[in-house]
């Protein structure tokens, strides 16, 4: 029997749906207030300074951008690699990818010194700059994923489905490569300047994107009371474990190669063994909460088919990924520039001393506002367009498996 996948808009008009939108709206409003306050008063009211120039908003922005490309993976696995079980999720995967990128870019743009000059950034390109290439990559991603979703929704466009899906997949790899290269090309700072940053960001995007996708999927199907089977959830669960392992492997390689070079011993000691927030975040949150705990929740035999454990693992992966980005972004900037190698320096202008950064509520509000915007876009889109299959029960997504 050939089971047909039926897509349908979310019909709910209840308190739950509008309450969710209202809840997200509060965060968006707080983000907007934070932006206008910083815009009006100047950056000095935030925690950022001339030593820590990228703060918490950039952690959110880069986290969301990275998650966006990762969220597309589910669709790509169905379209590019022919994994049929993921094909019903292609539309949601594309939608979430676009929404997360939108949220990330909003935070990125509003955290610019001159957000009002976005048009300059879009029209005046320095093609030697990886940052400029990223602007092109973001725009291209939006276009290609939009086209990809169109080919999935409109039967007349089906002939482009495979091509659009493949193009979007290749583009998403390039996009994360570009995001990682922002740090890979930084020769001036001890914690960056390593080619491994690009693949690390790609694998990180796989993990955090999938974790976001899992949460949205579970929330959507629980909220709308649509069925979702264990076969699909277990596929996603073990896929998440593979990606967590991938991130851990590349992170291990990055630190080991850094430790091999004497010039990096200082920064590695600062991040791994320092009496500071970065070491705490690295060991307790990134490794403990973001790596070990989700792997336990996934592989613990007593938690097999436990959906709460699956959701918790996804939440922990996201928390760990944001901690990892915080350590990479802020920790790398906090470590002082080495102006005089082999000399211990201290001065009244921050040289030789660890730069301090205290994130302000404004920055947190802006970052959370971007995340809320992404989720609000998804919430609205699933109501107006047919993104969600009516059922993801085992017999629908994997009839062959059910027969056997």
């Amino acid at each position: 029997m050939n089971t047909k996948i039926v897509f349908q808009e979310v019909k709910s008009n209840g308190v739950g749906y509008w309450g969710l939108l209202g809840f997200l709206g509060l965060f968006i409003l707080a983000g907007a207030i934070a932006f206008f306050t910083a815009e009006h008063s100047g950056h000095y009211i935030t925690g950022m300074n001339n030593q820590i120039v990228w703060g918490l908003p950039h952690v959110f922005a880069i986290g969301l951008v990275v998650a966006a490309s990762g969220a597309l993976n589910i669709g790509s696995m169905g379209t590019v690699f022919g994994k049929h079980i993921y094909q019903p999720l292609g539309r949601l995967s594309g939608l979430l990818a676009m929404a997360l990128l939108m949220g990330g870019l909003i935070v990125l743009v509003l955290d610019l010194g001159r957000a009002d000059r976005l048009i300059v950034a879009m029209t005046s390109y320095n093609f030697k700059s990886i940052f400029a290439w990223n602007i092109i990559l973001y725009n291209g991603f939006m276009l290609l994923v939009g086209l990809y979703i169109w080919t999935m929704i409109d039967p007349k466009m089906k002939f482009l489905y495979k091509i659009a899906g493949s193009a979007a997949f290749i583009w998403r790899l390039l996009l994360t490569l570009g995001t990682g290269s922002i740090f890979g090309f930084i020769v001036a700072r001890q914690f960056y300047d390593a080619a491994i940053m690009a693949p690390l960001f790609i694998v990180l995007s796989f993990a955090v994107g999938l974790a976001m996708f899992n949460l949205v999927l579970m929330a959507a199907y629980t909220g709308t009371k649509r069925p979702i089977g264990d076969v699909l959830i277990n596929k996603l669960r073990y896929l998440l474990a593979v990606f967590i392992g991938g991130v851990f492997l590349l992170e291990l390689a990055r630190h080991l190669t850094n430790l091999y070079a004497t010039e990096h011993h200082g920064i590695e000691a600062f991040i791994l063994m320092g009496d500071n927030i970065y070491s705490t975040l690295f060991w307790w949150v990134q490794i403990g909460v973001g790596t070990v705990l989700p792997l336990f929740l996934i592989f613990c035999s007593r938690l097999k088919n436990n959906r709460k454990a699956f959701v918790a693992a996804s939440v922990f992966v996201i928390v760990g990924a944001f901690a990892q980005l915080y350590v990479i972004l802020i920790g790398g900037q906090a470590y002082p520039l080495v102006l005089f190698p082999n000399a211990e320096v201290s001065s009244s202008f921050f040289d030789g001393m660890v730069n301090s950064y205290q994130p302000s509520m404004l920055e947190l509000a802006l970052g959370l506002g971007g995340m809320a915007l992404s989720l609000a876009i998804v919430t609205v889109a699933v109501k107006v367009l047919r993104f969600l299959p009516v059922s993801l029960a085992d017999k629908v997504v994997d009839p062959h498996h059910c027969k056997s």
Partner: protein
Amino acid sequence: MTQLALIIDLNVCVGCSACVTSCKEWNTSGSAGPMSDFNMYDQDPTGTFFNRVQTYEVGEYPNTETVHFPKSCLHCEEPPCVPVCPTGASYKRKQDGIVLVDYDKCIGCKYCSWACPYGAREIDEEQKVMKKCTLCVDRIYDMDLPEERRQPACVLACPTTARLFGDVHDPDSEVSIAIREQGGYQLQPEWGTNPANHYLPRRKVKSSVSKEDLTRVDNPLKDEHFNKPSDSDVTLEDSSWI
């Protein structure tokens, strides 16, 4: 090609910060300004400076010395801040090698700050664009000024002439001669940025001075048998009519 630069003599810099204040004064009121300050007299003051003097204690006690180290944009010949700028707001002038920021094109992404290995770039927290030393480009070509005044404000202000200004590509210029003859060096040449600004090193002068050396040979008081006034002599201070 001309490459204008500053040469800073660490041997004679006394860390008075006259260069810092004159730089701030000239530039905050000029075309590169304003250079905003916040909480100036409060806790955690913050502000924009093109030039800062950093003071280091070098060595282990008791064999220590103090080094005053003025630092501003080094106007690298291969500036890492220029290629990373997404809009091309950071650029290097062909005619004189000065690295500048076009404030109208800067979007304040601060990526140049990440790229500069010398920490020379600062964001103006009010105008929210990146700012840095311009080598006082608005005064060194100002024909309304007398020729000897067409120099960066910091150079004119330095009381010990620790700062020289000129073309480091001209082998006969004062700055090239100073680099050549006094061991001028670049900051962190290993980055390959080829900074145009150079530093002249600290130079230890060892000399033994005897008491006789300090006695003036042609002391006029000694030669003319000048008599010091005695306590009984009337001096100006004793004149009651003043």
